[in-house]
């Protein structure tokens, strides 16, 4: 196909992305430092108030926790699917995909049904005579964590699974022939080879967590506010410039942490490849 034709085919996407992604991003950066004259007041406010620093730190901490939990919980699940015959793998993958497709709003609502005052857990506890008073589970950090892990877990499982299917199983068979016990073959050959894809999954889950909004707002208390919730709150109070500064901070923290996680992952991978775990 001619070069000119290819350029024409790219034109609509370029226009769409410039108008609805690039231009708004640029305008957001502009709004964070021009109000209406150049000012760094909004960023200074962010750094000088411990409330805002707390929210930033919490956003990173919660996102890291969710990413690590999804990795630890998801890796064996992906491994299990990989051990199945081909046809059954497809079926099992659908079990992972179905919850992933449901709207986050609805999946968060489901947790209200389960953890609420008259929810499933409290009803069961009462029925079994284990509790006389309903337990407070909604509006706690634990509720936010349980739901965020549940929502993001399918993504980590699928990423791990995809990485594992790339592994040449002859290598594991070779290790077995050379005398490695199954456990050894897994730890010394399979695990290092699946590490890169697993880390990619961890980074994706971390990145998605950083922007989480619905789940902390509905299941968490005041103490669970994340950056995205703060942005919404500031928009409601018409502090657009301050909200924009928060948006910039969110993006910078996310990108910075991704670079850091990737770097740490490379170091870890090198150590694992050298000496095993």
């Amino acid at each position, binding site marked *: 196909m001619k070069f000119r*034709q*290819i350029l024409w*085919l*790219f034109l*609509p*996407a370029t226009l*769409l*992305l410039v108008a*609805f*992604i690039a*231009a*708004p*991003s640029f305008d*957001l950066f502009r*709004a964070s430092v021009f109000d209406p004259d150049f000012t760094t007041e909004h960023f200074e406010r962010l750094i000088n108030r411990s409330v805002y620093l707390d929210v930033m730190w919490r956003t990173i901490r919660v996102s890291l926790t969710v990413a690590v939990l999804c990795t630890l919980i998801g890796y*064996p*699940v992906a491994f*299990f699917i990989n*051990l*199945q015959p081909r046809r059954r793998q497809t079926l099992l993958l*659908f079990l*992972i*995909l*179905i*919850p992933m*497709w*449901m*709207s986050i*709003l*609805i999946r968060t*609502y*489901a947790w*209200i*049904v*389960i953890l609420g005052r*008259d*929810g499933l857990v409290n*009803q069961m506890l009462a029925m079994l005579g284990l509790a006389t008073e309903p337990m407070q589970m909604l509006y706690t950090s634990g509720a936010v964590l349980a739901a965020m892990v549940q929502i993001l*877990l399918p993504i980590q499982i699928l990423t791990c699974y995809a990485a594992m299917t790339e592994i040449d*199983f002859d290598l*594991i*068979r070779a290790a077995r022939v050379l005398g490695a016990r*199954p456990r050894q*073959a897994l730890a010394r050959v*399979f695990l290092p080879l699946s590490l890169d894809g697993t880390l990619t999954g961890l980074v994706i889950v971390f*990145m*998605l967590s*950083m922007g989480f*909004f*619905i789940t902390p*707002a*509905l299941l968490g208390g005041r103490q669970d506010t994340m950056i*995205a919730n703060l942005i*919404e709150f500031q*928009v409601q109070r018409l502090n*657009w410039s301050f909200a*924009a500064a928060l*948006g910039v901070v*969110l*993006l910078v923290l996310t990108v910075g942490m991704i670079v850091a996680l990737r770097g740490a992952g490379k170091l870890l991978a090198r150590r694992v490849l050298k000496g095993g775990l």
Partner: protein
Amino acid sequence: MHIMKPSLLLTGYFWLIVAYMIFPALIVIPVSFSSSEFLRFPPEDFGLRWYGVYFTDPVWIAATVTSFRVAVLSTVIATTVGTMTGLAIIRSPTHAQAPLTYATTIPIVIPHIFIALGVFILALRLDLTDNEVALAFAHAAVAMPFVVLITSAAIRQIDPTIERAARVLGAGPFRAFRVATLPPLLPAMVAAAIFAFFVSFDELIIAQFLMKGSETLPMRIWADLRLDISPVVAAVSGLLIVVTTVALACAEILRRRAISTLAP
């Protein structure tokens, strides 16, 4: 290929985690058939009361219709633009394909709240807030990367010599595309369109920032969950869970076929 048989422990663990992922959504369905005033589990008596409320409340219906309208427009835009982009990527020189894919799928890695805020601030200056068309375009920008990924994977499997043969035999570029490439590409496009539809239909934050007068369905659900959690949300959720699962399972089957059986 098997290196080992999964142990009983691992099998049990797998099903436990599947239950953790799916069970919360399943629990919503019996709750939606409750007829009591409050959210309670197990429901005391069953009935279609809250489905009735949903289908007769003009506010809920208006929100659903608005969401549907926005999602349809957004799907048309995202599918058209995304398929053109997928085609352009695969027809580009091989070494340029990866960077071009990254460049056109970049919205995937940007938090929605960031896009929402940016679009909102820009819309404020251009006086485009509360505009359904602007919302549909913003949703299309977010959904397009998924269309690019799905269609480009399918186009890779289509033999380009057939289209070239059509050109040699005298068909114009559009006709050659329509008779040679479009038919085998159609299943992937339908799959991509279904995914794009639900990206828009389920999207809350961009809509929440941009719209003031009219409401989309996620905005309505959000408002309801923030004020008083009425079981109408359970009825709406029950409906959405069924519709989403069926539609996206079909889309996934189409997508899998498009990238496997077409292989030359």
